């Protein structure tokens, strides 16, 4: 099987090409650094499907050069050098050929067959440019092919040429001026039998950090040949462009070229305006959350427009002697009109409402028809379906949230926001680049944490990794919604506003945490902000839909695997005594109750420990279950609600008699504490040391525990502010003094 590696600059359409070739559905965004890990797939020529006829294609993270600047760039260089692909397809963006060919000249120095694929052929034609591939091919000494990955043009031709090229071994070629020094350096590597000697030689002369680490002896020997280091590296970059620029002038016919990106610049004049820019961004964020979560669209209900009892629904079901209206409140409720997200949430429903509810109720009717014993109905309906249905009901809403964010990412807007926020972020202690992984955290912490590889310093990565869970992810949105409903039921506080405030709290905690870390353990000069701003383009609808569907599928799979298993275990432990006797609804003595009672006192300072009384263990169990997956908080509450004989979370609150302050503290703790197993595993993979990993876990637990206590105390016993506020003030002063002291030390050292 022929092995092909796709390499190229960030945002040159490599992943789109990869998807088109392999039929994969990897995520495509319009900002540099979407792909941070390599992934592989297989291409088959038409009519050939056998495994040995396939061509293996590896998509590498986009890089601007083969001298790595960020961790994900090392992946690409090492793959080409150490994994020995049969051929490298260097994907270049045809609309910015000159810049893209800079790395091409570096790849060509390696001993590997290369094909240059000029992508975005359509956009090139559209902008009136004409590229002479023959002239390029002659000058570079490798095949040059025009393709359009997006419109799937020229792909078969590309793969044909790639397969042929793979059979012809190639020696590295340099376009730098003939230099004795390079020759000498090359011989040093050759004498050590290191492959791609020319490439290594040039890198060593440039004083490349990675080269110094990986081929230490050869590197040292070469450093003794020449001591210019920095200046030499400058001279080499200049020489590369001295080769590329005239070549592009010859090969590109610009006579009919349109102004390259005037339209994007006009849009930018508004979207990144000094005053309107941030306002527009805040408004966009607000509207996204409003359209996704609000049950009172445009606040018509709050403004006094009467909605009566809400939409009554179009079906009435009578099951087990109870009347159900699964689609009540579908379009509007007593509170107001549903937003698009809320509409889909009601449509999907839970175990009594919506489409999921119809299925669950049908199942219950079936069990009743069969005269099933009580415990069987309890197990299926209250135990399994209740928890899983609660999680499934939120899937469409989360998909809509994803859709909004994907549109922003795909359009090219996110890179602008990162630039706009850079100055502000810099004051806090990170660069604007950190904004992208942070905002990804609103979707899911796992990809967000992996994306921190695009950050250039270790400390910046650590800071960002630690605050990512504070950006409320989709799974947390689920339990926030049921907590908001319980708070609304208790003190009539608007659920939409409550949810928004909780999201805001997460952001504020993240900001404070970044500042504190930057002043104490993670002190450094903030890394520079250098980012390409891509031209705006309309989101690719097909890619967008595939991406959203993938996300939805991920949540549905989770619901039927880890959540389902957790729910069954929880139901089982909550329904049987240690002597394996089944206990009915609302009675005590279960195994889970005994375990829960042991944990319960931990949460006493947060108001839902011993105060919650004999049924309070349910809250402790839900919290612990949340460490597995945050959807489990919702699923466990629904399941245990069934076991305890109440309808929902508000019912549990009433049964346990905990105060509203404790309910909010429950929310705050679960929101900020150690996230799910998946993100803990990702953290482990992304942190360099064990110590840093455990410190992060302790940091998450400590922050959530302390803030949970503060929330409870402040809401329930306002007078405690007279103690806590001065304590916080002392902390702030101590931080400022420490920072001054350290700054002085650092200045003295410099």
């Amino acid at each position, binding site marked *: 099987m022929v092995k092909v590696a796709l390499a190229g600059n960030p945002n040159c359409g490599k992943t789109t090409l990869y998807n088109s070739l392999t039929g994969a559905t990897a995520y495509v965004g319009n900002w540099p650094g979407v792909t941070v890990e390599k992934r592989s797939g297989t291409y088959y020529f038409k009519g050939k499907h056998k495994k040995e006829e396939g061509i293996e294609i590896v998509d590498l993270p986009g890089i*601007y*050069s083969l*001298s790595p*600047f960020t961790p994900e760039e090392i992946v690409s260089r090492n793959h080409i050098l150490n994994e020995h692909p049969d051929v490298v397809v260097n994907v270049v963006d045809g*609309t*910015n*050929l*000159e*810049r893209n060919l*800079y*790395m091409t000249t570096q790849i060509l120095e390696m001993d590997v067959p290369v094909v240059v694929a000029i992508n975005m052929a359509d956009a090139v034609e559209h902008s009136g440019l004409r590229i002479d591939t023959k002239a390029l091919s002659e000058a570079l000494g490798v095949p040059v092919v025009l393709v359009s990955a997006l419109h799937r043009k020229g792909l078969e031709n590309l793969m044909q040429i790639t397969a042929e090229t793979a059979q012809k071994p190639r020696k590295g070629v340099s376009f730098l001026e003939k230099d004795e020094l390079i020759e000498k350096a090359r011989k040093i590597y050759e004498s050590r039998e290191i492959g791609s000697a020319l490439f290594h030689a040039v890198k060593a002369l*440039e*004083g490349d*950090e990675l080269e110094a680490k990986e081929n230490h002896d050869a590197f040292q020997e070469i450093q003794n040949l020449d001591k210019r*280091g*920095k200046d030499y*590296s*400058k001279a080499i*970059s*200049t020489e590369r*462009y001295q080769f590329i620029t005239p070549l592009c002038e010859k090969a590109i016919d610009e006579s009919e070229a349109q102004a*390259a*990106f005037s339209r*994007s*610049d006009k849009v*930018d004049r508004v979207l*990144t305006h*000094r005053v309107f820019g941030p306002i527009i961004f805040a408004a966009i964020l607000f509207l996204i959350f409003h359209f996704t979560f609000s049950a009172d669209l445009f606040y018509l209900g709050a403004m006094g427009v009467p909605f009566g009892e809400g939409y009554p629904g179009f079906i009435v079901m009578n099951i087990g002697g109870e009347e159900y209206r699964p689609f009540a409140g579908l379009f509007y409720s007593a509170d107001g009109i549903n937003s698009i997200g809320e509409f889909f949430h009601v449509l999907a429903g839970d175990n009594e409402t919506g489409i999921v509810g119809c299925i669950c109720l049908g199942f219950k009717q079936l069990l009743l028809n069969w005269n099933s014993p009580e415990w069987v109905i309890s197990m299926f309906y209250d135990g399994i379906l209740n928890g899983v249905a609660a999680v499934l009901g939120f899937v469409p809403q989360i998909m809509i949230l994803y859709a909004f964010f994907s549109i922003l990412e795909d359009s090219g807007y996110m*890179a602008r926001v990162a*630039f*706009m926020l*850079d*100055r502000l972020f*810099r004051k806090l202690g990170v*660069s*604007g680049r950190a904004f992208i992984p942070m905002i990804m955290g609103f979707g899911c912490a796992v990809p967000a944490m992996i994306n921190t590889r695009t950050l250039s310093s270790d400390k910046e990565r650590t800071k960002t990794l630690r605050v990512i869970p504070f950006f409320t992810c989709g799974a947390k949105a689920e339990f926030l919604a049921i907590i908001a409903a319980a708070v609304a039921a208790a003190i009539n506080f608007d659920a939409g506003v409550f949810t928004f405030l909780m999201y805001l709290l997460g952001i504020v905690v993240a900001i404070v945490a970044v500042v504190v870390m930057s002043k104490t353990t993670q002190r450094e000069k903030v890394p*520079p*902000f*250098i*980012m*390409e*701003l*891509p*031209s705006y383009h309309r989101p690719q609808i097909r890619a967008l839909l595939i991406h959203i569907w993938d996300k939805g599928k991920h949540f549905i799979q989770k619901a039927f695997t880890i959540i389902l298993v957790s729910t069954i275990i929880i139901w089982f432990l909550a329904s049987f005594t240690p002597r394996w006797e089944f206990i009915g609804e609302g009675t005590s003595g279960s195994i889970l109750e005994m375990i829960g009672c042991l944990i319960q006192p931990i949460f006493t300072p947060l108001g839902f420990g011993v105060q919650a009384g004999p049924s309070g263990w349910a809250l402790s169990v839900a919290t612990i279950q949340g460490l597995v997956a945050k959807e489990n908080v919702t699923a466990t509450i629904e399941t245990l609600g069934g076991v305890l004989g109440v309808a929902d979370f508000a019912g549990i609150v009433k049964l346990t008699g905990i105060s509203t302050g404790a309910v909010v503290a429950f929310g705050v703790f679960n929101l900020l504490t150690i996230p799910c197993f998946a993100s803990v595993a990702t953290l482990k993979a992304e942190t360099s040391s064990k110590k840093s990993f455990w410190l992060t876990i302790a940091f998450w637990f400590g922050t959530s525990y302390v803030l949970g206590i503060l929330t409870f105390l402040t809401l329930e016993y306002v007078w405690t502010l007279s103690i806590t506020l001065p304590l916080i003030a002392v902390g702030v002063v101590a931080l400022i003094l420490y920072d001054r002291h350290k700054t002085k030390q650092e200045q003295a050292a410099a």
Partner: protein
Amino acid sequence: MSLSLAPKQTPLRIVRVQTDERIAKHLASLGIVEGESVEIVQVRAGSTVLKVKRGRLALDAAVSKGIEVVA
């Protein structure tokens, strides 16, 4: 003059890139090298957005300050 003080929408030529080596190499791979012509599209409190070759590049204030250009 430094890039952060240079006029907008005027063809400029880079004469010097003064920053630490690692950043300078990264800038070079993005097209910021001595002798290259660029144009400033936007300035925000010292940060700049540049047209370089056929791309658009955003740089923070400190990096912008280290790039010297002539009109």
